């Protein structure tokens, strides 16, 4: 959907900026906020661009750079780190062939180190887009990644 169409669905209330940015980001296949999106948001709320850029730059969930279709948020906060998130991150990096913060060349996965996701009872844990995966180990991670890869292939 066109950014101007998306922002038109929101009130002209600054309180709506975060939900607006989420909607704009989620509507983009590369899960990021384009400058067009940010300009649309600024225009709709009648604020200057730096306000919107500044907000997008503050919050961890927003990205100003293109990312993959699947954002892997691997928790690396105290409980998960205690329970072995370091190994999980290494596993992911190894399976996907990219470093933390990068996107796979096929545009499918981005690995992002995340702060506490509030699912500590199943640490080490991660989220991929909206799905939660807990009690991770290297085998499970491999399974999950494969699963997603297969689902993508079926879509095509």
């Amino acid at each position, binding site marked *: 959907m066109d950014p101007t169409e998306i922002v038109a669905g929101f009130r002209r209330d600054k309180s709506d900026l975060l939900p607006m940015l989420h909607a704009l980001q989620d509507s983009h296949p590369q899960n990021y906020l384009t400058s067009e999106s940010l300009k649309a948001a600024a225009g709709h709320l009648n604020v*200057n*661009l730096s*306000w919107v*850029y*500044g907000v997008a730059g503050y919050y961890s969930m927003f990205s100003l750079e293109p990312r993959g279709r699947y954002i892997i948020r691997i928790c690396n906060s105290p409980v998960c780190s205690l329970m072995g998130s370091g190994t999980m991150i290494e596993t992911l990096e190894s399976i996907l062939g990219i470093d933390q913060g990068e996107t796979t060349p096929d545009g499918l996965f981005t690995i992002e180190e995340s702060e506490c996701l509030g699912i500590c009872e199943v640490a080490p844990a991660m989220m991929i887009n909206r799905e939660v995966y807990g009690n991770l180990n290297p085998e499970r991670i491999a399974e999950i990644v494969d699963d997603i890869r297969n689902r993508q292939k079926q879509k095509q």
Partner: protein
Amino acid sequence: MNAKETMVTITIDEKTIQAPSGANLLEVARTNGFAVPGLCYHRKLTPTGACRLCLVKIEGMRGLVTSCTVKVTEGMKVTAFDDEIENTRRLLLNYLLYEHNDTYDGTYPDEMRELIIRYGLDKPENRYFPSVWQTLPFEKDDTSPVLTYDPAKCIKCFRCIKACDEVQGKNVLSFTERGIKSFIIAGTGVWGESECDGCGECIQLCPTGAIVEKPYRDVIELDKLERTVITTCPYCGVGCQIELLVQDGKIVRSNGVEGVSPNDGRLCVKGRFGYEFVHSHDRLTKPLIKRNGRFEEASWDEALNLIAGRFTAIREKYGSDALAGYASAKCTNEDNYLFQKFIRTVFGTNNIDYCTRLCHASTVTAMLKAIGDGAGSNPIEDFETVDCLFVTGNNIIDTHPITATYVKRGAAKGQKIIVVDPRWTPLVRYATVWLQPKLGTDVALLNGLCHIIIKNGWVNRKFIEERVEGGIEAFSQLEELVSSYTPDEVASITGVPEEKLELAAELYATSSTSMIATGMGLSQQVTGTHNVFCLINMMLITGQVGRERCGINPPRGQNNVQGATDVGCSPANYPGYIPVLNDENRRKVAGIWGVPYDSLSARPGLTTVEIMQAAYDGRIKAMYIMGENPMISDPNLNHTEEALKKMEFVVVQDIFHTETTPFADVILPASSWAEKEGTFVNSDRRVLRVRKAVECPGEAREDWKIIHELAKRMGKPMPGYRNEAEIFDELAKVTPIMGGISFERLEKGSIQWPCPSPGHPGTPTLYLENFNTQTGRGKLFPVEYSPQNEKVDGEYPLMLNSGRLLYHYHTATMTRRTKALRDFVDEAFVLMHPNDAARQMITEGSKVRLESRRGVIETVARISEEVLEGEVFMPWHFTESQVNRLTRDELDPYSKIAPFKLSAVRVTRI
């Protein structure tokens, strides 16, 4: 200090102090000699509490508290300095040195550096932490034409963001990222592509070298300055106080002067960066005489003798009234006062006028007739504190940027703003209601508003009875006339919807204080004077005048356009607005000037455009033009050109070659505002000092000295003034409204006229007791609407409106010789509505030709919905597309102004 404020007693480090209740604790401490450090706090901004350096202990409050966020209360016991607090402050500075690049290049004032030295941290052995700023992912932003942002020097104090938001109302800046990686962005992160307009408030308030001016940064060394001079800005009529920094005989920086009216440290891009032209290589440095069609350098003797001879000969052959003079809105009062004295005593005529005729002539004419004074009735601060501001034909944000900062602050506090403008301007974003009438329909609009006000009973009967000439009877005549201007009728004439008319009328009439700001939109029309009469009618019947924070204000466009008329550069008035026809005054002035009474002409002279028309008709044979560029600023330029060519002898006195100098017989090199002492008068009647910062280049001379010398050589010498202060003293004797002002008094600050005697404090608001008319009352002038003579038709289907831009100044002789300003904008254009453009197959950037019944020009098109369909807009600054080739010189019968705002044109793609 307000007598109604309650004082409280507090102690700081056991010293007892009196302070106003609720005052800021940090301010109170500092005022009382406690040098509590702080970097994020600034008097002009809301407190932030980010740097934590101002921490103190307050009895009854836990731990350390930032004094900048505390308001004093009775009995407060504060510890500002003890070992623990000082150690904490030292640690905080140490923390800052972890992330801050503390190398210093001497080009900016560095508050942080002062603190570093004060706390002994300039010695590396005293530092606690390593310096890691090099490892942080920062990049300098060098993309702005006027400043550089260095995040490695940024201490994230929020001052620049707040300066931009709270002081200037522009909201351009924000932080991005988070934590130690945060840095400032303008717009999307490329400063040069953002909405930043270069006002530099952020530069001035930045406590480190994070934001620094670009111009002359490679040259300036703050400890090598020769002098700093406080003077008045040479651009618009706000009259900002600026501090010029001079190094090696050149101006290298301009700062706003904090804490003084009218600007309290604020500047716009022109005031902050527009000084470069002073040192341009284009400056005229030698007199030039035209021989055989070419200009040749000459000595002053040669030039002045030639001029004296020719002027004298022409006067003797054709009579005094065959001579005329254009004074200068850019020159000082002293220059202008001597100029009008010269025209009156040496030429012997009242043919003196200047570009004010092209500008606020209608406003001033109407105001003089109706309320008796031709200047703004309110001080600039009222723009922030009035309840309702009625702005008509005035693009305040671009043309009077500092006045606009007051308006924006008022808007943030809930001020109601009514904007009347056929074209979108940035002020519309703040408008409570925007009326967009078709060009030339203002009388109908304003009569319509009066109609609504009267119908709803929103008139102030008491005011009408007590302060309007003719009382209720005169009012009834107005009521009768506007009775046919029903909302329905007015909506159809102007195109403004009825609901908007009703809302505007209600807001203006029923707000407890309403103030008018009126600009070129109303004035520069054939019905200009009538337009302003209607505005004044509305003001008088609602009683929104004669009290504080009420009145009518024409923001003046040039640094001394107000002053030049005040000191007599007018064909109809002597200094102080006393009519030429006033016998008694002429007698008095003749006495002061030491000339025979009957040598002073009793015949009012010709106005600016009339002078050119008379030259065209052969009635004016010679002109003395000082600091004016009629070949850009006069209407109907083809006609003006002919007029100049026809005259027998023309002298142009200026600082640069202009579009007018080719038509001169002699060109005299004169002084810029930075090269002489003197005074200006700004829009709110403040007499402001102008101080000399640098020497005239080459053989250029102060304007008043040239005039003085010329008078001598024409056999009518003036007294030997030793300096400008003496000129002012004589001026004060002749000009009753400035009678009590002198250079000595002005050392203590500006004074608003009327100030008739040395003990008088000056007058912030006019008309509190009386209007300045014969009866002391205001006059109503009911007038009917009549459509313009200039009509669109099949051949010329669009109406051309003209106006200004923020970055350029009038004929751009100064601004286009300043790199910083050219970097922002340097191109002419015409703004067209998409539908009009589409009809001609014109797209963004197309080259186009504009033609009117008077002339032809070419420029580039820009497409925008900021203009109404059927109307186009052009800025008039640019010589490559001279808008006034297209305008006409049909004049307003009273003010003699030309209708720059209305010319029928056609636009075709080239």
